[in-house]
C-alpha cells in the first residue's frame, strides 16, 4: 500500500506493507536513524517523534497511520548548522551520557514547550514520564529542558551546574 506523509517538511510517498511500523519506515526507508529503537514495547520513548506537533511513540504506530500527517524527527529540528535551542541546552547542561535516549527526550521536551512555554520542574518531569534514561538520573535533563524554555522565551542561557556549583568531590588540590 502507498503511504504519503510529510517528514521534516519534505513530502514522501512510499509503497509499504501495512504492518510496517512508523519507526522502521523512518529508519529503514528514509534513512533517518536518529529515531532510536529502545525497548520495542512502548515503554522507553527512545522512538519518540512528533506527529502533527504531538509526541508519539513511533514503534507503536503503523506507518499507515501517519498517512497525511506531519512527522518531525530529531533530524528536522536544527536549521542548517544552528541547533534547536533544546539541542543546545541538552549539550550545555550535558543532559545525556550515552545519548541513546536523547532524540526521544528532546522531541518530548519540544512538544511540552508548545503547550507550556514556561514549565515548572514538575511539569517537565510529568512530560518526560514516557522517556527512560538509564544513565543520567534525569537531573541534567530536567535542567536542560527548563533552560531551553528560557532561551526560547528570550532569556539568557542558564550556566551549567559545574560552572556555578562545583561539586566539592571534583575540587582537587592544586598543590
Amino acid at each position, binding site marked *: 500500500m502507498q503511504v504519503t506523509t510529510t517528514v521534516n517538511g519534505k513530502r514522501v510517498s512510499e509503497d509499504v506493507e501495512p504492518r510496517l511500523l512508523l519507526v522502521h519506515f523512518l529508519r529503514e526507508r528514509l534513512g533517518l536513524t536518529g529515531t532510536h529503537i529502545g525497548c520495542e*514495547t512502548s515503554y522507553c520513548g527512545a522512538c519518540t517523534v512528533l506527529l502533527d506537533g*504531538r509526541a508519539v511513540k513511533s514503534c507503536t504506530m503503523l506507518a499507515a497511520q501517519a498517512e497525511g500527517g506531519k512527522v518531525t524527527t530529531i533530524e528536522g529540528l536544527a536549521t542548517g548548522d544552528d541547533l534547536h535551542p533544546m539541542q543546545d541546552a541538552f549539550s550545555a547542561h550535558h543532559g545525556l551520557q550515552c545519548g541513546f535516549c536523547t532524540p526521544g527526550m528532546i522531541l518530548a521536551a519540544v512538544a*511540552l514547550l508548545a503547550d507550556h512555554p514556561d514549565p515548572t520542574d514538575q511539569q517537565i518531569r510529568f512530560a518526560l514520564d514516557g522517556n527512560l534514561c538509564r544513565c543520567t538520573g534525569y537531573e541534567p535533563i530536567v535542567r536542560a529542558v527548563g533552560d531551553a524554555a528560557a532561551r526560547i522565551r528570550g532569556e539568557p542561557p542558564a550556566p551549567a551546574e559545574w560552572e556555578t556549583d562545583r561539586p566539592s568531590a571534583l575540587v582537587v588540590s592544586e598543590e
Partner: protein
Amino acid sequence: MYPRLFDYTAPGTLDQATADLAANPGAKVLAGGMSLIPMMKLRVFSPPTIVDIGRVAGLESISEQGGRVEVGALVRQYQVAVSQPLVHRATALAEAAAWTGDVQVRNRGTLCGSLAHADASADQPAAVLALSGMMVAHSSRGTRTIPAADFFVDAFTTALDEDEILTGASLPLGLPGEGSAYRKVGRRGGHDGFAVAGAAAWVKIEDGAIVDARLALTGVSTRPLLASGVQEALIGSDGSQVAVHAAAARADEGAVLIADLYGAEDYKAHLAKLLTAQALEIAVDRARRSLSAQ
C-alpha cells in the same frame, strides 16, 4: 518486532467501516492502537484484518446535548483529560484519562479504545461505570446503546458483537449536588502505569444527605466492579468522614478478588478500601462545593 501479516483497510466513512468489519471475519478495529499494536507486535494477538477507523469522519468530537456529553471514538485520552465539560462535570473520567499511560500514550490512545479493549486494570472502565455511562455501538445492522454496567463482561471481553464498532461513550453531565473522583495506585507507584487498583466514586447530595452513590473498582478482578455494599452504606448518610470510611470498609464485599503479579487478594482488598475512601471523600467534597458555588 513486526506484527504478523494482515489485511488493512482505512475507510473514510462509518458505513464503509462497518461494512469492512462485517465482510472480514475476525477483523479488529484500530483507533489509537495503544493496546492493539503492542499485542500484535508481541504476536499474542494476530487479527487477519485491521479496520483502521483513524480516517472515519465524525468521530473526533466531544459533544454536549441534552445534559449529556458524548465522547467520539477518535477522541484521545489527552483531550478527555482537559475537556472542560468532562473536567467539571464528569471529573472521575477526566482524572482517569489524565493518569493513564504517559504523554505519548495519551496523545494516541482513545477513550473508546480503552473501553472496547477492557483491560481489567484499565482506569477508564471504572470511571464510566461510576458515572453511569452508555456505550454507543454501530454495525451494518444498526445502532444500539449499552449501559456500562452491562458492557464489561470479563477480562478483554465486552458486550460488543464482532461486527460492531464502539463509536462513542455517552455520559450524563453532573448537576449541582453531584461530584465524582478517581483515585488509583499504579504499578510504578503514584499514578504511573496500569492500576494495581483504582476506585471511581460518584455521589449525589440533597439537603446535606447522600441520596445516591456509585463506586466502581478496577484492577482487583477480571472486570470493573460496582461495589454495591459501599453504595448501600453511603446512601442516606451525611457523607461525613466517619460515614465514608464505614462505607469504604465494605468495598470488597461480595467481590471475587483476583491476585496478579502486582498484588495478592488481601492487598487488593486493602487498596480497594483505601482508594474507595479517598475517592469518596473527594467526590463528596466536590458535590458540596458544586452546591456552594451556585
